[in-house]
């Protein structure tokens, strides 16, 4: 039944959406402003020169490269470990299974600042110097959760007898993995991986505690905002970040549409 929504509700809904999305549009507009010291509304003029300036700034490229590297590696780690963990929890019964399930999800429920502080202390105790790898380890903690959540939901929906049927028909463990398990969980894994990538790409809190001297893109942006020089460069980068994180999330949404997949809520 389609019934017309009351006018008040419509206005409220539109208002809510504007409140959520107008600020993002503002960021985009400021990327084209001619005024570089303070954000002045309305912009005195529009220009494309900040794209060129951004393109020629090595620190932007460095930060972007590091962010992409960190996001890719932590996503790969998360996909391998998260899937294996989901398979174990969904497929077999063992002592402490529920506890493990909870412990895996905990990093995403925990405030990032706690994860960050504890990782920093742990790295100190272990005498590990801060490097790209310490950032990756920090990001992997919450990336695993996203992949795990997606994979475990799919595993639970996949009937256990499919695996038995495959083996019954002569398939070995590897053939079963390749021809039955992978096709059935592939979209969930891809969706989990994309969300993990997006989360890692714009992560700030855990990164500040585990990065040392290196700057990922979001950290670079924070630093840049307090310096009153070439401000619109930050906005150009922000546009890129929005696009880079939005596309995977959109992809994940389409891949898991109509399924009961639990996406990465909360982080």
């Amino acid at each position, binding site marked *: 039944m389609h019934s017309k929504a009351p006018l008040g509700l419509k206005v409220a809904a539109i208002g809510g959406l504007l409140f959520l999305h107008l600020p993002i549009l503002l960021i985009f507009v400021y990327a084209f402003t001619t005024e570089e010291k303070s954000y002045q509304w309305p912009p005195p003029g529009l220009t494309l020169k900040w794209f060129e300036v951004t393109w020629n700034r090595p620190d932007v490229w460095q930060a972007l490269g590091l962010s992409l590297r960190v996001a890719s590696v932590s996503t790969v780690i998360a996909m391998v470990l998260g899937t294996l963990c989901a398979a174990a929890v969904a497929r077999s019964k063992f002592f402490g299974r529920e506890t493990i399930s909870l412990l895996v999800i905990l990093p995403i429920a925990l405030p990032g600042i706690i994860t960050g502080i504890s990782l920093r202390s742990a790295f100190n105790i272990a005498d590990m110097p801060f490097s790209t790898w310490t950032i990756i380890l920090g990001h992997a903690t919450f990336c695993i959760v996203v992949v795990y959540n997606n994979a475990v939901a799919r595993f639970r929906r996949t009937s256990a007898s499919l695996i038995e049927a495959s083996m019954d*028909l002569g*398939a070995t463990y590897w053939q079963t993995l390749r021809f039955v398990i992978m096709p*059935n969980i592939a979209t969930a894994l891809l969706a989990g991986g994309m969300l993990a990538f997006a989360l890692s790409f714009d992560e700030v809190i855990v990164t500040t505690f585990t990065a040392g001297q290196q700057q990922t893109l979001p950290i670079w942006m924070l630093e840049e905002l307090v310096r009153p020089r070439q401000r619109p460069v930050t906005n150009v980068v922000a546009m890129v970040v929005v696009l880079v994180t939005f596309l995977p999330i959109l992809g994940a949404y389409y891949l898991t549409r109509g399924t009961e997949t639990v996406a990465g809520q909360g982080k």
Partner: protein
Amino acid sequence: MTSAISFSGVSRHFGDVRAVDGVDLEIAPGEFFALLGPSGSGKTTCLRLIAGFEQPTHGSISIFGAEATRTPPYRRPVNTVFQDYALFPHLNVRDNVAYGLMVRGDAKSARRAAADDALALVALDGFGDRKPAALSGGQRQRVALARALVMQPKVLLLDEPLGALDLKLREQMQGELKLLQRQLGIAFVFVTHDQGEALSMADRVAVFNDGRIQQVGSPEDVYDRPETPFVADFVGASNVLPAQLVHRLTGKDAPASLRPEAIQIGDGPLSGKVSTQAFLGSATRIEIESEGITLKVLLPKGRSVPEIGETVSLGWGADALHIMDGRNG
């Protein structure tokens, strides 16, 4: 002759639970064999032991004379039709049926032809391009059957094959399965909790309870000559008379089964009070409290039916009382 399936002292324990407990079993090649029992009686575990999804805790299993106790499922000459059909949702019907041939490495054209033949065998010609989700329950079951049969197994295992179908379809499939088994001449081993299904389809029936086999025999054997009170009650819904009562009636010291339809109201050694009455169409079933037990009596249409509360005498023919001095009696 070598048995198709041979169990020798097979047990499967899950922790403290003895799902299967010391089972000896011989299934002949070409036999339609039923594993019958209530849920939790060990019949499904037995089937899974044959398929190789479970490994026995004790004992050994051989398939056509070859030791198979530790053989993985993918190296056994048996195939299974699963209770939930377990069709691969990402493959169409033809690729589902051809799956076993594909992993074996058959050429694409050969497996396509074999799959279409198998689909024709189960009257599903032309369904090859559909996805399993687009089929009805009965059609999915046929696909599962074709997928197992295309492998030309020496033994076909069926786990509650008709459980999910409605009554009419179930009766139709009973006939078709029976016909298919005769055509193919291979052993069918099927699990069921429905004694009517077991009796009407199987050449031989093994009745399970608490992980043990109570009786193995032809449908007539287990129905007419139950060896234990459990078989009498579960298979035939028969009356079980306790040993003391049988001793008083016959002098023998063992429980006995007495079929509800063999009892006549009138003159006889027992008397009791009618407690319930149910009209079944072709007959009326009444229950009579007598000697501390409840006796079920089936009166065919036309016979006079006593009122509830009435006290009646019960008699039966000379050979109606079957003394159960079997091993578990």
